[in-house]
């Protein structure tokens, strides 16, 4: 009996078991613990407490702010994203290809570094632009104040609108131009076509992009932390952070955190569900067909003004803040003028070689990201393979668990990891690098699953079956056929994890200990401590790593594409 049972256990069952185990330990348990802690006190459902906590002014305000910020960012990003996407794909704007690339640059930049730059430029007391305007117009007070909801919304929009831009530009490119052509032939004007044909066809793309922006903004920590806390404005993630740090991790604080986290989980789940519906509905509408070029709107006299406007937008949102970071990073002290005497590379030498704290932070971020990217990539292949290719009973458990990482925001993961790995199950990783490592795996699993599943779906089952018929065992067919064919997807997954993890702030800020700061945490802490210049120097280092990393990705993806 027993022998027969074990005789039935094949590679499929083993893979399924390992995959399920990893997802349960890394993702499911933390999320469940959060929900459990939020809902139950001493083992019984406790709604009174929940209502009490939610009706406290602090938490209630945080909820409201999160909604206002996410709403504002979503609306603005949608307008800007759709406008620029339409501009580069449906008008005769010059240098379109270059512009398309430029509009995607904000994607690569960490938004909390952007927030830092805007604080340096527009803070009411010492922002460079404010001081400049006060000086030349001899004003009484600073004209701008970046601290507040408006500033947060503006800065987040700068870095999130590419989500909409990519979706919409993609939809416009894939759209069958004959649809527009036939409307034109039947006598409709360009405006009518845009309103009646183009816009409805773009709607799924717009909605998908907007929902991504909403999801991201709702759970975003960096920008509100830098531009909001100064004036007492909190959103959900910064409130969780504040609660846990103010109280030194008291039970009430954790409970408040878990309740807010549960709200984030539910909201994220709903948003992803809505996005799924929208994308599924959109699949039938936008049909590939590049046979004809779409009619381009002639901008005529507006051509140059609109080009200048677009370039100005890119200059203000990308170049100005980046340059500010690099320049401030070289100053002797914050607030003095950018003259040669005031600038040097001394700061760089100090944070890279002399100062233990920053040196450690860079090293920590580096090896944590590398290890997390490696492990997540390998485990992601395993799980995706089981989901996409295996015929095994009980797979639905894995399919369900596999969706989980997508809908769990970074703050929630951090909190869940704290609950899980602080000795509750006999293992205490608190204040060690391991806890950040575990959190990174949970946080970036979604990227790996997405990339590897997409790659695996491209590999037809018959390719593997052909290998089996040729005498290859399951392992051999994996090694010789499947893995070589999905290598580009795996490399992409690696970098999709490594680069964002390198500059990660949201998760590690809740998990770091005295010796386990990451680059993001160090920049954030330096800024909090008023060490603005060193914060800028370290941010410059991060930016250089990111830019170099992006160039490497470009090269690698290009060569792998050619290699296949």
């Amino acid at each position: 009996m027993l022998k027969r049972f074990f005789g039935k256990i094949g590679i499929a069952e083993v893979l399924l078991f390992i995959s399920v185990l990893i997802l349960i330990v890394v993702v499911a348990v933390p999320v469940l613990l959060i929900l459990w802690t939020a809902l139950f006190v001493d083992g019984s459902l406790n709604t009174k407490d929940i209502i009490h906590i939610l009706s406290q002014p602090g938490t209630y305000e945080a909820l409201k702010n999160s909604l206002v910020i996410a709403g504002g960012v979503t609306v603005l990003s949608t307008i800007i994203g759709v406008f620029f996407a339409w501009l580069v794909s449906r008008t005769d704007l010059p240098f379109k290809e270059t512009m398309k690339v430029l509009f995607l640059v904000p994607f690569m930049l960490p938004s909390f570094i952007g927030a830092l730059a805007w604080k340096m430029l527009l803070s009411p007391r010492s922002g460079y632009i404010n001081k400049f305007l006060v000086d030349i117009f001899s004003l009484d007070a600073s004209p701008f104040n970046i601290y507040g909801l408006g500033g947060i919304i503006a800065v987040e929009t700068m870095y999130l609108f590419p989500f909409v831009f990519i979706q919409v530009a993609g939809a416009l490119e894939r759209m069958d131009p004959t649809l527009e052509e036939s409307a034109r032939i039947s006598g409709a004007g360009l405006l009518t076509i845009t309103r009646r044909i183009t816009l409805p066809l773009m709607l799924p793309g717009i909605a998908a992009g907007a929902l991504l922006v909403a999801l991201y903004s709702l759970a975003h920590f960096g920008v509100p932390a830098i531009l909001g806390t100064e004036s007492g404005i909190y959103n959900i993630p910064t409130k969780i952070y504040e609660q846990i740090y103010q109280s030194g991790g008291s039970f009430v604080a954790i409970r408040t955190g878990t309740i807010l986290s549960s709200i984030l989980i539910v909201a994220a789940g709903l948003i992803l569900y809505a996005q799924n519906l929208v994308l599924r509905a959109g699949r039938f509408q936008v049909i590939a067909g590049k046979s004809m070029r779409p009619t381009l709107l002639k901008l005529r006299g507006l051509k140059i003004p609109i080009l200048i406007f677009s370039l100005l937008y890119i200059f203000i949102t990308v170049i100005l803040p980046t340059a500010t970071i690099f320049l401030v990073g070289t100053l002797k002290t914050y607030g003095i003028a950018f003259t040669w005497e005031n600038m040097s590379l001394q700061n760089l030498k100090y944070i890279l070689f002399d100062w233990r704290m920053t040196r450690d932070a860079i090293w920590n971020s580096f090896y944590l990201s590398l290890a997390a990217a490696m492990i997540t990539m390998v485990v992601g292949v395993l799980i995706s393979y089981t989901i996409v290719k295996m015929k095994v009973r009980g797979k639905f458990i894995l399919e369900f668990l596999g969706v989980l990482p997508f809908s769990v925001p970074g703050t929630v993961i951090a909190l869940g990891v704290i609950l899980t790995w602080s000795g509750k199950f006999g293992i205490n990783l608190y204040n060690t690098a391991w806890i950040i490592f575990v959190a990174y795996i949970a946080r970036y699993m979604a990227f790996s699953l997405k990339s590897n599943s997409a790659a695996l779906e491209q590999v037809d089952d018959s390719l593997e079956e052909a290998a089996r018929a040729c005498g290859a065992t399951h392992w051999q067919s994996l090694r010789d056929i499947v893995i070589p064919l999905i290598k580009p997807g795996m490399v992409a997954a690696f970098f999709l994890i490594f680069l964002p993890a390198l500059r990660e702030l949201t998760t590690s800020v809740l998990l770091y200990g005295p010796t386990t700061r990451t680059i993001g945490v160090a920049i954030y802490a330096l800024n909090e401590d008023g060490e603005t210049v060193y914060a800028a120097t370290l941010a410059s280092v991060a930016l250089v790593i990111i830019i170099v990393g992006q160039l490497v990705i470009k090269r690698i993806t290009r060569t792998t594409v050619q290699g296949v």
Partner: protein
Amino acid sequence: MAQIRLEGVSKVYGGHLVIDNLSITIPDGECFTFLGPSGCGKTVVLRLIAGFEEVSGGEIFIGERLVSSKPKNIHLPPEQRRIGVVFQDYAVWPHKSVFQNVIYPLIMQQIPDTEANERTREAIRQVNMDGLEHRMPFQLSGGQQQRVALARALVSRPNVMLLDEPLSNLDANLREEMRFEITELRKKTGVTILYVTHDQEVALAISERIAVMDPKGYIRQIGTPDEIYEKPADGFVFRFMGISNFLPLSFRDGKMCIGNSDSVLDREIPPEKIDGVRTGKTVAGCRPYDVVLTRDKTSAIGVLKRIIYLGPILDYRVAVGSLELRVQQDIEDALSEGLHLQEGDTVGLRFLDLLWFENRDSEQEVT
């Protein structure tokens, strides 16, 4: 080489019975075809034999080896079945050259290098691909990729080759050529070939024996191409093998009339069929060539609905009462008989060969 034996094999997918209690023996060294409409379960049978799927019931033997058995809980994985498989979509590995594709089974068998190289070249030669060894798959046409797949299935000298509609993605010329090549290969190597297709032309051309499956996955007839074509076991097989007419008959005033018309069928009915015909259970069937149009309108008559010229063939649609018959005739014959027919003409009908079928089979839709 080996025979393949299925005993009471069944396969269930999610509560849906796709193959039900299938028993068949495919003799050693034969080119055997499963022929049936799409969706009838041909691929499933092939995959069960290859070992990609486990049986839900019954047993499968390849040679003397029991490879799948539900009662004994045996499932030999595909790599241990010593089979060659050619898939409908070629399944040539895109990251390996022609040579690397073909040599792969030998590497898996750990054949020494020199022998492996020699056999690989031999297999590539057998499918007429010499000179293209170092091409990558994306540099090959569909037909060439299919040859690579054939060579790869052959190179390890399997006992059994399983081919799943290997020609259906090729254009007509290539299909003819590959058909010829598969027949040649079998003669050269003597391997048992199990071929699966929905295309009766291909099946008739390459098989030594054919098993015709109906949409539910049951085998209706097993026989040589001649037997299947000339002596179909039932109306389904008859209809599946080509254009067919079914004539329901009724006795009126002691005469046998076609359908609800007054046209009389002046033919002897085999005595054992008379009862069936009387009760309406048995119908007559004929091919378009087995109906001759004449000027003699004394027995059966029909009205010409449409005439189409299909090259050297005249294709007629003739209404007999509410029934529509397909009739075909060589243009030369039509001319020599001096028939100058036009649409709307009334013509006499003479029936040559008639076959007799159970009614329910003729009504089954063929897709």
